[in-house]
């Protein structure tokens, strides 16, 4: 089996290899993570103390908007697709993804989409400044001219995501090795299949939303303009019909990651495999009927508020099942705490804290007090940073030896973990307090009563941002000069990629199907 392929830049431009594409996705998402993170630093510097010291309010709004868009669409989502590309063929015993050329295209759309989006910062009138949720009419009638670049950018990201999702589904349903039945698939594969269905369901809805914005802005329609018979609240219904499943799109693959890692370092099989699959599917189904819990303050009829409140609270049931199953997996296991395990444990604990605040937010009568305050900012950063991002980080540490054939420095990895763990809490925990004290989100300046917690959050954010550079250093150092890794680097690891594959993983995965027991 030869590894014949072009070299240099052509290798990356023309590649149809799932590993190359996965690598590009992961590096791209890391670059976006740093860009979006730099914007977060601007936000936290401005909020370090009361008064406007660094930026004017309009630029501040551009930063919050771009930070959100880049982190959601540029950092978290591509990182998950990168993991899917690397791992799914290895885990199900397939030679590659089912649609390799489309795979290449779905990646290469992204750099162009984000160049368009980021270039809007340098345009007259500045970048989009209406928040990542781009509510009409602030984004339509009142949006800056660069809004059209944002619309085109979102379309391109959507096309990329849909193609990525189709590829996952086609691969998983057609290319499993003989004997790899659906209920034998690693949980990471399951969570990704379910995520892919969510993507295919909701990305077109997002595309519809931005298209309606475009025609409202330029072609005389009035979908969201009340003066022309339209409805600005309809925008929010359509947006959140995409937006709520979107939050599960960002977290479900991370559920899959920790469901692989926790059993490995507990040296014990995942507890309740089938209930994990059913719980993931129920979360995905429920995510379609809870969208309006983002809109309790818009003046919905009380019957609507009741429905969305109850449906949202129900999500805590399958989510609880997952958390209990992870705990039960560790129970009476034989635990060790290497870096991937540390990140996975932090994931379970901190994501659960985000789940608690989620139940609080679901309760409409108190949500009136939490809604659009820093309490919400604290909540969704708890599920996104120690959730989605710790999940990806854990995955990188766990599979890096398999991918590169080299082992990272465990001490450095643990240092990265502890710095991240301390600073992520220092950044986001105080936000619960400033929110409860009454600080609205998306404001560039605030009364002195909020200053202590904002200062703490800013200090935490600077530390958190710097600690991620350590991650970059560790990964580069591993690739360049890491010690040789073993075929089965982790004692408790299970799965085709550990049991039936060399380290580093060969350029072509499973040219002949592996035996699945």
């Amino acid at each position: 089996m030869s590894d014949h392929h072009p070299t240099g830049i052509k290798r990356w431009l023309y590649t149809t290899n799932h590993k190359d594409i996965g690598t590009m996705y992961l590096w791209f998402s890391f670059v976006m993570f740093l860009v979006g993170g730099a914007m977060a630093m601007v936000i936290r510097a401005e909020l370090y103390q009361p008064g406007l010291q660094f930026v004017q309010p309009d630029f501040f709004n551009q930063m919050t908007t771009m930070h959100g868009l880049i982190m959601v669409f540029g950092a978290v989502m591509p990182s998950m697709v990168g993991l899917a590309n690397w791992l799914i063929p290895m885990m199900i015993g397939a030679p590659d993804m089912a649609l390799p050329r489309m795979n290449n295209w779905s990646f290469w759309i992204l750099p162009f989409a984000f160049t368009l989006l980021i270039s809007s910062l340098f345009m007259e009138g500045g970048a989009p400044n209406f928040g990542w949720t781009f509510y009409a009419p602030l984004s339509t009638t009142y949006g800056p001219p660069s809004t059209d670049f944002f619309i085109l950018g979102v379309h391109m990201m959507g096309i990329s995501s849909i193609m990525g999702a189709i590829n996952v589904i086609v691969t998983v349903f057609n290319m499993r090795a003989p004997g790899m039945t659906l209920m034998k698939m690693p949980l990471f594969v399951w969570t990704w299949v379910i995520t892919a269905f969510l993507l295919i369901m909701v990305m077109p809805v997002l595309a519809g939303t931005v298209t309606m914005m475009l025609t409202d802005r330029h072609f005389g329609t009035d979908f969201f303009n009340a003066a022309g018979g339209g409805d600005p609240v309809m925008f929010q219904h359509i947006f959140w019909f995409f937006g709520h499943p979107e939050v599960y799109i960002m977290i479900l693959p991370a559920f899959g990651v920790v469901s692989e890692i926790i059993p490995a370092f507990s040296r014990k099989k995942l507890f309740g495999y089938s209930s994990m699959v059913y719980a993931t599917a129920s979360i995905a189904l429920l995510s379609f009927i809870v969208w309006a819990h983002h809109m309790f303050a818009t003046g919905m009829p009380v019957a609507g508020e009741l429905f969305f409140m109850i449906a949202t609270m129900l999500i805590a049931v399958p989510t609880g099942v997952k958390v209990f199953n992870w705990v039960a997996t560790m129970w009476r296991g034989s635990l060790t705490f290497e870096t991937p395990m540390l990140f996975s444990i932090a994931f379970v604990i901190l994501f659960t804290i985000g789940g608690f605040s989620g139940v609080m937010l679901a309760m409409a009568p108190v949500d009136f007090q939490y809604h659009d305050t820093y309490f919400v900012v604290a909540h969704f950063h708890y599920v996104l940073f120690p959730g989605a991002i710790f999940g990806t980080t854990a995955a990188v540490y766990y599979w890096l030896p398999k991918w590169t054939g080299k082992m990272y420095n465990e001490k450095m990895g643990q240092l990265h973990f502890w710095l991240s763990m301390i600073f992520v809490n220092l950044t986001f925990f105080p936000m619960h307090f400033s929110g409860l004290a009454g600080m609205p989100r998306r404001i560039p300046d605030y009364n002195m009563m909020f200053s202590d917690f904002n200062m703490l959050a800013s200090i935490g954010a600077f530390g958190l941002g710097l600690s991620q550079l350590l991650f970059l250093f560790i990964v580069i150092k591993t690739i360049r000069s890491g010690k040789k890794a073993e075929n089965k680097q982790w004692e408790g690891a299970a799965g085709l990629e550990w049991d039936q594959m060399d380290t580093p993983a060969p350029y072509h995965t499973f040219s002949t199907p592996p035996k699945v027991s």
Partner: protein
Amino acid sequence: MGNRRKLLASLAALLSFILSGVVSASAELNMRPGVTETSQSAYDLHMMVIWVMTGVAVVVFGLMFYSFIFHRKSKHPKPATWSHSTKLEFVWTIIPFVILTALSVPAVKLLIKMEDASKPDMTIQVTGSQWKWHYKYLNEGIQFYSNLATPRSQFDEVGKEGETKGENYLLEVDNELVIPVNKKVRLLVTADDVIHSWWVPELAVKKDAIPGFINETWTKVLEVGTYRGQCTELCGKDHGFMPVVVKVVSESDYKTWVENKNRERIVAEKAAAEAAAKSWDMSKLMALGEKTYKDKCAVCHKEDGTGTPPVFPGLKDSAIALGPVREHIEIVVNGKAGTGMQAFGSQLTDAELAAVITYERNAWGNDKGDKVQPAEIQAFKAGN
């Protein structure tokens, strides 16, 4: 050893810094119970959920930490081999379900109560616009705008030293919403341009102000006092600078306030009519114009008239300010649909309108040299 001691000392210093921050801020650690029945019920519900969640956290995290300590490889080298228990899984599906059902009962009750705005004692229309609130007392015939009262010089510190900030920095307005204590006040909330949200934490009232739609909410405040909140829906550049201040007064004080407000209005209307009737000279127009411009226009068009194009065009050397007077009056009085330019015809007096238009045509090197008199504004509004 020296190094370790240094590390410990610096850790202790960091910890004490964090703790001092938490302690000094302890007043702002939690939601305030507020001053209405609904806000107090919301607070009680909030505390109840917090305690329930804390209980769950103690159990779940407790089990995890027990596992970390006693099931680590060094203490528990042989892992158990079970990985499934239908009974257990059933139990931990049912328990959260029961807890959530228990939580939802008081939530449903409170929600239904909060959404019942029927049988109000009085009604006020609340209108949000970029970036101020307008209050209209539907029965008393009173209406006014409520603007941020904190001067820009206190917060704009980019490249310069800011002035000392007052206690109610960014949470103070020129005209508060005044309502009587112990009366059910219905609020009809809407907006002129983009979506805003009217929130006062102590009242537990948060309602989106949506252009083209009217939302209904209500409050019945139990204690006299001044309560401060903010706009909570991103509404553009100065979203962080449109506070809500509600002053709750006794019923007799409220009556006096209404009488004063009506008397003031008659005096102001008379003064405006007198001012509009006379002919103004250039220096007076420019002086009043500059003051009005800084109050109302500079927030978008900048003090030096350069604006932030293309969303907020500059007025210096602009086609409007140097073009026909009538078009200039038109845009200031009626605004421009589909843009941030509001209709100032009802926000300013005729004299202020005339002055500010004159000012815009003659400031920053604009050199039209023409004067606009209040009478011209009156004539324009009358349709001549």
